[in-house]
């Protein structure tokens, strides 16, 4: 099981019919493929399109029809194009319902650090800060640990912040947390892991939700097979 694809699938379940959604770079862009077919979700990309459609076949790709990850996309019926200032007006103005974004670190109070690493050149921020500050609901998707096994879910971020206290949901390959009144609350855990095991890889403080549930990933696999 590819944890990135599981995370993307799980994030897609958070999207509801009618939602206007912006998908960030990385895992988030995978979310598009997992949106349940019975939900009508409108994807906005900050380079200037509302109504992003699926990746087209190679022969009909157009270098001037791309998403913010610079990947080829198609145009859905009812789509519209606009300049970058209107695109970000949509975000900061609160007109985008949900954004799904990746992160390097996230804190127990919902701080997000996803654009810079201490000691390295700070050379790219793109739309990340505007998206996180602007979108009504911020869904953070991430592998639970870094590729060399270090924790990313921390009491406080040690990397430069992208925004303070803006995370609403955190989805990893093991767990789903929600941020309620700046408190991190565990809502869902995959049954491959015990609560104790989760605690060991999660230095951040979190409460356990009244609605806490254990899940297994069969649902995702079933879904994946049916899509394959």
């Amino acid at each position, binding site marked *: 099981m590819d944890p990135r694809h599981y995370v993307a699938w799980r994030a897609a379940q958070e999207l509801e019919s*009618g*939602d*206007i959604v912006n998908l960030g770079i990385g895992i988030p862009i995978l979310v598009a493929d997992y949106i349940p077919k019975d939900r*009508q979700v*409108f994807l*906005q990309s900050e380079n200037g399109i*509302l*109504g992003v459609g699926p990746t087209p076949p190679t022969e009909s790709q157009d270098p001037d029809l791309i998403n913010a990850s610079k990947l080829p996309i198609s*145009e859905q*019926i*009812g*789509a*519209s*194009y*606009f300049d970058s*200032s*209107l695109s*970000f*007006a*949509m*975000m*900061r*103005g*609160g*007109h*985008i*319902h949900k954004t799904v974004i990746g992160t390097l670190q996230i804190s127990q109070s919902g701080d997000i650090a996803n654009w810079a690493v201490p000691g390295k050149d700070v050379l790219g921020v793109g739309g990340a800060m505007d998206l996180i*500050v*602007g979108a009504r609901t911020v869904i953070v998707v991430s592998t639970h640990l870094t590729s060399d096994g270090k924790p990313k879910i921390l009491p406080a971020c040690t990397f430069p912040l992208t925004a303070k206290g803006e995370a609403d949901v955190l989805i990893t390959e093991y767990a789903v947390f929600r941020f309620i009144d700046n408190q991190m609350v565990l809502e869902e855990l995959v049954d491959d892991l015990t609560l104790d095991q989760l605690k060991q890889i999660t230095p951040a403080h979190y409460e356990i939700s009244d609605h806490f549930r254990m899940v297994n990933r069969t649902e995702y696999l079933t879904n994946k097979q049916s899509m394959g």
Partner: protein
Amino acid sequence: MPARFMTAREAVALVPSGSTVMVGGFGLSGQPLSLLEALLETEVRDLTVISNNVGQQGKGLGKLLLDNRIKKAIGTYFTSNPDVSRYKREGKLEVELLPQGTFSEAIRLGGSGIPAFYTPTAAGTLLAEGKETRIFDGKEYVLERSLRADVALIKAYKADRYGNLVYYKTARNFNPLMAMAADLTIVEVDEVVEVGELDPEAIVTPHVFVDVVVQKEASS
């Protein structure tokens, strides 16, 4: 969320008394006249209206004024409706005047999450009195707050079934800006078309900004 489709009566039932309402239009051109007629049929009162004018005498917003529904008007040019002057003198209407460029930018930025901006317009005049000013590069600018509303009542030419909008000639004016700047945007249109019938390159207001579409009745 794609727009919901309603009758004018259903739509204006969403406007609460005491709310701040943006109303599109330059004079009567681009005013959502059917929505305003329907609003007059409700019991709504104590409105703060953000609109370039208060309609014309006895027309459009001018009717709501005469029916004592408006407690405050924020706009740029009320001179063309003599009732505004009379209501103001009689203490029945509070008026706040802004230069038209400040007014339109304040609405666009209000819809864009920008709370305040500096403009050269009105520096050193009566309209800057009581407002902060600041020098940038040797020139004086006035700090202006952006504008937002609870509801925007706007007029467009065509909507598709999602709520994407295009406008008609100079009736466009403040309408696309107000669509962005309210918690609830209700649009009156002449024509509803199927999704896909509007050119994606020519859509002026993408449907993210539109909550409710009302098709103007053929009779009005």
